[in-house]
């Protein structure tokens, strides 16, 4: 009889208010197996890992550990079983030394000196070089991750979970990490490796469970699958080409030229020499894994971040790089941010008052707000965009995510913008509402508005965009017409591998390597 699986999940489901994060998920990991969990952002990977680690309780489903049924109520219990997790975001105290950080997470039976010794032993054994006495703030991101891994290893785990571990690593560091993981697996430790990077998974893992929309879409051996096959499992079948009017691209509305902008903090992304334009009457779709500079680019375009070099952002030929969002709005640029509560709307305020964020038609001379006009506008938006709510006086936070999204998108569409920039137009929105929003965006396009739609859902971009661009590590791919694009191609581009222009290709490639080496980006898992 074969050994019992180290971990087996059966029928795990977790429902959040807006979304079913896990739907009847099954997962089986054998001892010593390196098992990948593959999926797009929002596919339910993180929720599943939190369930295994006891940080989230599933609504239904069972968990078996070494053949015995278990119920993991909290992380302490998970650790007692031998489950260790290395998080995507580090949880180290900057002012303490590496050893002190590790010590904090261990049983208090050991003295600090003993911990230092054990760290030295483990790091030598696995080639994870860490100086236990150095304070964490002096360590590079790669070294910090080694500290996290060493901390996990000191508990002698039987199952090690790594959540997108390579997003902060240089290529060489990734290879070193893989060596360590293979060594661990050879010693009998099972490894759950979460990622959306196909090449890494193929290089490292022998089994792969693919999630899409909270459901398992396949369990495969990644070494025998092509990128296209894995992509299709992860993103879904290539969408049917939707009939929509032929785009009649007009004048250039938005022109971004040589836009570079340093990141604001260590989790941000530096934007590097971004060039693109959006014309009247077309929808440009921007694809990319979140955390590759979308947030930063949106802030620059909306005017929330005004550090862009002058002349790098032009609206109808006018330099707007340093203009405030209100000035840009007056010139016809409207923007829908991806965060609805707290950015697109003030949670505590009524829908009526929330219209005033971007719609000031009802503000008269001397700044007097004509409340009747404000109410009427809110009522119109609610009716036109079928917003289910308790009326114009309902607080923004009392609405469901989808309904608030309809309200915010509606608020900007109703303003009859000349350029509309939308970030994640249908995130967390049900199918019907998503269709409504996409339909309205197309209508706006046909009326001659220029649109830039940023989305992580390739399906959505294929459905509405006329041209596509891909953002990766703060750089932008050349544009590609929708009819020439395919999921496989975009998937490749999303990892930064797009054809370089012949001239200076070598220099660009070198820059790409340098960018990768310095990347400290958070490839955020929402």
């Amino acid at each position, binding site marked *: 009889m074969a050994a019992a699986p180290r971990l087996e999940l059966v029928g795990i489901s977790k429902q959040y208010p807006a979304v079913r994060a896990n739907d009847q998920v099954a997962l089986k990991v054998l001892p010593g197996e390196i098992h990948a969990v593959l999926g797009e952002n929002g596919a339910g990977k993180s929720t599943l890992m939190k369930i295994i680690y006891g940080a989230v309780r599933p609504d239904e489903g069972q968990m078996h550990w070494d053949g015995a049924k278990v119920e993991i*109520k*909290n992380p*302490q*219990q998970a650790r007692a079983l031998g489950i260790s997790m290395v998080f995507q975001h580090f949880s180290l105290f900057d002012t303490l030394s590496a050893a002190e950080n590790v010590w904090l997470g261990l049983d208090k039976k050991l003295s600090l000196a003993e911990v230092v010794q054990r760290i030295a032993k483990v790091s030598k054994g696995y080639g994870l070089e860490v100086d236990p006495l150095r304070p964490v703030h002096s360590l590079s991101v790669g070294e910090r991750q080694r500290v996290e891994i060493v901390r996990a290893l000191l508990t002698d785990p039987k199952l090690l979970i790594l959540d997108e571990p390579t997003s902060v690593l240089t290529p060489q560091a990734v290879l070193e990490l893989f060596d360590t993981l293979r060594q661990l697996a050879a010693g009998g430790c099972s490894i759950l490796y979460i990622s959306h990077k196909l090449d890494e998974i193929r290089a490292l893992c022998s089994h792969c469970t693919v999630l899409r929309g909270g459901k398992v879409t396949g369990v495969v051996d990644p070494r025998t699958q092509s990128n296209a096959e894995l992509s299709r499992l992860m993103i879904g079948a290539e969408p049917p080409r939707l009939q929509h009017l032929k785009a009649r691209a007009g004048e250039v509305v938005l022109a971004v030229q040589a836009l570079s902008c340093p990141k604001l903090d260590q989790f941000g992304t530096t934007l590097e020499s971004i060039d693109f334009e959006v014309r009247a009457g077309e929808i440009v779709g921007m694809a990319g894994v979140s955390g590759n500079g979308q947030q930063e680019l949106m802030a620059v375009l*909306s*005017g*929330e971040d005004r550090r862009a070099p002058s002349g790098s952002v032009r609206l109808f030929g006018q330099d707007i790089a340093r203009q*405030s*969002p*209100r*000035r*840009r*709005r007056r010139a016809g640029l409207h*923007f829908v*941010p991806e*965060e609805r509560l*707290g*950015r*697109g*709307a*003030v*949670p*505590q*305020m009524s829908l009526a*008052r929330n219209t*005033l*964020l*971007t719609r*000031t038609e009802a*503000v008269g001379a*001397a*700044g*007097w*707000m004509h*409340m009747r006009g404000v109410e009427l506008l809110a009522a119109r938006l609610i009716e036109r965009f079928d917003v289910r709510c308790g009326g114009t006086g309902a607080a923004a936070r009392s609405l469901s995510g989808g309904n608030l999204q309809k309200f915010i998108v509606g608020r900007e569409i109703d303003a009859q913008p000349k350029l509309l920039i939308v970030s994640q137009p249908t995130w967390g929105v049900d199918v019907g509402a998503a269709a409504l929003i996409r339909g309205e965006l197309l209508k706006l396009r046909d009326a001659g508005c220029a649109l830039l739609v940023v989305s992580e859902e390739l399906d959505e971009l294929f459905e509405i965009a006329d041209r596509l661009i891909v953002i990766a590590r703060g750089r932008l791919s050349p544009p590609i017409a929708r009819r020439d694009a395919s999921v496989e191609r975009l998937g490749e581009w999303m990892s930064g591998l797009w054809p370089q222009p012949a001239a200076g290709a070598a220099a660009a490639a070198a820059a790409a390597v340098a960018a990768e080496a310095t990347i400290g980006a958070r490839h955020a898992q929402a």
Partner: protein
Amino acid sequence: MLRLEARAQPSKLMSLLSPLLALVLTALLAAALFAAQGKDPARGLAIFFVEPWSNLRQVSELLLKATPLITIALGLAVCYRSDVWNIGAEGQFLLGVLAGGGVALWLTTQGIVLPRALALPLVLAGAVLGGMAWAALTALLRDRFNASEILVSLMLVYVAQQLVNYMVFGPWKDPAGFNFPQTKNFDASTWLPNLLPGTRLHIGLAIALALAALVWVFLFRLFRGYQLQVGGLAPAAARYAGFSARSSLWTALLISGALAGLAGGMEAIGSFRQITPHVSTGLGFTAIIVCFVGRLHPLGIVFAGLLLSMMVIGGELGQSRLSLPNALSGVFQGLLLVLLLACDTLIHYRIRIRSALAAAR
């Protein structure tokens, strides 16, 4: 182990009743304190809660004391709604006393007798500018150096107190005042007109009530007020909308400085008619309580101003009638604020008790 867990839907009714609940709890604790001091609790409560309303003279004193509290708290409400934590209204108040009183003193010593319609606006404008200047220091330090406005405004209170002391012990000391640390009495042409004959109540009360209406309009009908509040509630939304956080900081602090300064000026030419080191008994701090008990709303602040004024006067009465320590009034004010915050917390959260064992497992 205690854990606070957010309630899905905090009760609206309880949110409104919370100040009342806090008041009842304060009264109960007050009764217990009286008993502990060996005084009759019923009599103690009567002195604090009933006596101040017993006759016209008491009521007029109560209204008189409520005037600066309401005026200052209105400005603080604008600040707090903008997420600007001005704790130094006391200092801005004192600068209003100095600047407004200074104008009145200058007119007096120069022997200039202006018609009241001219003298009063002059004095009060000085007071407003004084308060604004003091608040501007805080705004400047926060804006330029990102210094905490809480600490800066609070520390500037002590500077302001020393400034008052210096002036009345030094340059502005009344030469004919038997060396008491006080200025000359201001000329009658600079006094605030009386509102109720036979009492000390002056038109400052009417000004405070008018200001309450104005602040309401500013907060709920003017776009500027809306912008400030968006910045206070959701800074990212304000950035998205394009409302400048810097301009909000300055606007909020200047408005609250202006109102605190005005309150100081009105006290100087309304009640004291000279400057002494004792022009403030911590009104600027009491006003913070008024502001919160009044739910940061102008109407609520008017009622809360009356309530806190009552407690201040009750404290004075308790001192003379029951020989209770004067600090008791401060204790009650503090209790009221802490209990209010506790009530609010329990309205928004529920307490979950977990044993340490369960937590460890």
